[in-house]
């Protein structure tokens, strides 16, 4: 992605303002704004009739024959198959020690488990009725689930599954973690770091607004029991995916930038946390150093950490993992796979794919390029699937979850026949 050049992003509405007027057109009045749905916050009055709004996620099963695996295009040697399906809303993935795959969701309120029977997979609903249980993480035999309002721990879950037993009530860790329960950007990613601590983001409770830098737009870490909270990163608007560098242990994370500022900016981010507590800019500095037209002062970006890479505005890079397997060619070692769920807040759709990020020699920056495409049809401006997370299996294959179709694809590699 070429960097966005203007140092201060001009709101889209400026471009359509009456010529000769130097007055920024009024946004929706405060009173009206209160009655806007969350996704429309920050939409300029002129855009009140805009047809753009988030795409609804199906809550029903996509029949296997309708899963668009034939649409997927990958570099030579790679192939994709449907590995598991029939799980509406499948999003974030975590792997258990015994090979069980756990899958979180949002609207449908379920957590799924997939057990591998060799050539077929069995799917189970292990929790339901939760408020957007997006985050799943696994450690020492226990599954951790983050819903909007709760953190839960399911002990010995794989042995209960293996023995066909009732899944016991989870340990309620909600109070121990003491996280806010805002709905807006309140769905949480979860991952354990190499330090054994549980990393939990708290998104900004808005599209763009001032936030308490110690409670919102943050990534926190905790001991697994919810004690010893630390703030790892600040100024992070809404990250829904991160991983730790296999060599340095550094935290790398995706971040979704603000809606309604413009169709072509600010770009969504891939970030690297160098020092604990670094500030990544929200709400006054976006993307590659773009000062917020309302909340940012001229030097708002001076003390902020800028992204290691940027990608298309509104493309929604979510789940991301470093690749450490042996199955894929050498050039993918320690690269990052990033699932992009795809845009709604721009007229021409982008994303709906998986990118690969290759790190620079000094490990500070990354280049992004397409890895798995085909779910977006640019001629029709329509999409057939939405990748949300990626996960490396023990054999080095890569799983990709497709929230739109409730399916999980497995991507494997064999040297193409023209290679010796």
């Amino acid at each position, binding site marked *: 992605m070429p960097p966005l050049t203007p140092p201060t992003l001009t709101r889209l509405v400026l471009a359509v303002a009456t010529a000769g007027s130097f007055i920024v057109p009024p946004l929706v009045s405060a*009173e*009206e704004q*209160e*009655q*806007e*749905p*969350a*996704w429309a916050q920050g939409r300029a009055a002129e855009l*009140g*009739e*805009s047809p753009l*709004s988030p795409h*609804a996620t199906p*809550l*029903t*099963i996509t029949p296997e024959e309708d899963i668009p695996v034939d649409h997927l295009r990958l570099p030579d040697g790679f192939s994709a198959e449907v590995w598991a399906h*029939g*799980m*509406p809303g499948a999003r974030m993935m975590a792997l258990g020690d015994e090979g069980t795959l756990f899958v979180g969701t*949002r*609207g*449908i*309120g*379920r957590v799924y488990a997939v057990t591998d029977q060799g050539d077929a997979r*069995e*799917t*189970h*609903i*292990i*929790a*339901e*009725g*939760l*408020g*957007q249980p997006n985050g799943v993480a696994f450690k020492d035999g226990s599954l951790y689930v983050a819903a909007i309002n709760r953190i*839960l721990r*399911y002990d010995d879950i794989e042995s209960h599954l293996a023995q*066909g*037993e*009732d*899944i*016991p*009530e*989870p340990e309620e860790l909600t109070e121990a973690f003491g996280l806010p329960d805002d*709905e807006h950007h309140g769905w949480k990613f979860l991952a354990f770091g190499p330090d054994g601590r549980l990393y939990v983001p708290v998104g900004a409770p808005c599209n763009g607004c001032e936030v308490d830098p110690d409670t919102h737009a943050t990534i926190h870490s905790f001991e697994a029991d919810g004690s010893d909270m630390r703030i790892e990163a600040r100024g992070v608007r809404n990250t829904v995916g991160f991983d730790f560098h296999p060599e340095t242990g550094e935290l790398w994370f995706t971040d979704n930038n603000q809606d309604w500022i413009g169709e072509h900016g600010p770009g969504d981010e891939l970030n690297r946390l160098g020092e604990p507590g670094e500030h990544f800019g929200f709400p006054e500095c976006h993307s590659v150093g773009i000062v917020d037209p309302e909340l940012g002062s001229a030097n708002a970006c001076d003390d902020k950490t800028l992204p290691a890479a940027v990608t298309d505005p509104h493309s929604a890079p979510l789940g991301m993992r470093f690749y450490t397997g042996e199955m894929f060619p050498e050039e993918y070692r320690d690269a990052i796979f990033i699932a992009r769920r795809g845009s709604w807040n721009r007229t021409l759709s982008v994303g709906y794919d998986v990118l690969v990020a290759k790190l620079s020699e000094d490990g500070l920056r990354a280049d992004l390029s397409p890895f798995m495409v085909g779910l977006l049809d640019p001629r029709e401006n329509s999409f057939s699937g939405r990748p949300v997370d990626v996960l490396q299996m023990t054999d080095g294959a890569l799983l990709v979850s497709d929230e739109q179709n409730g399916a999980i694809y497995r991507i494997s590699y064999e040297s193409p026949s023209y290679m010796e």
Partner: protein
Amino acid sequence: MLRQACAPPWRRALVLPLACVGLLAAEAQSQEGPAAGLPLEEQVQLCGGCHGEDGNAVEEGVPSLAGQPALALTNQLIYFRERLRRNEIMTPQAQGLSDEEIQALASHYAEQPLSPPDGKPDEALMERGRELAREHRCASCHRSDFSGQQQMPRLAHQREDYLAQAMRDYRERTRGGPDTTMVDILRNVDDEEIDALAHFLAHFDRG
């Protein structure tokens, strides 16, 4: 079929807020609803007991299903089935319905014609409702003829008493379900405004 591929009910961990446990017991949560597994025609007869034979409801406070977008009906039935939306009548009714059954019911009702209400509209109320609908931009999701689209329900010619109650329930946060959009929109709308909106939408006529 997920329901069959998945573990049987006794293997499914039910995780619910403590406050809901009493309610759940009352719902006899492990039991299937009366319509589950029946042929579509028989299911439609059951639903018709309250929602009207042809999906045009005649009972007070009961929504008409005729002419609703299929996805809007599908999503609400799934919210009931998953106990994400708790209603003492509908949550038990939806238990055990498969995705296919829900989608077939939704398509059936989406294709039924919805009749406009009897009686002449009140002109002053209509004007007030029209203004409010413009102010709150109802049409930006529910379409300019209020026929609904995708997961957004049809409002035009829906029962007036149901529309008013649904808006009050959203405002009071008692409707339940994962949708928060309408809660945000109705936060500061008073009863007089809700009644005008309901009257206008129930009697909407493009004219």
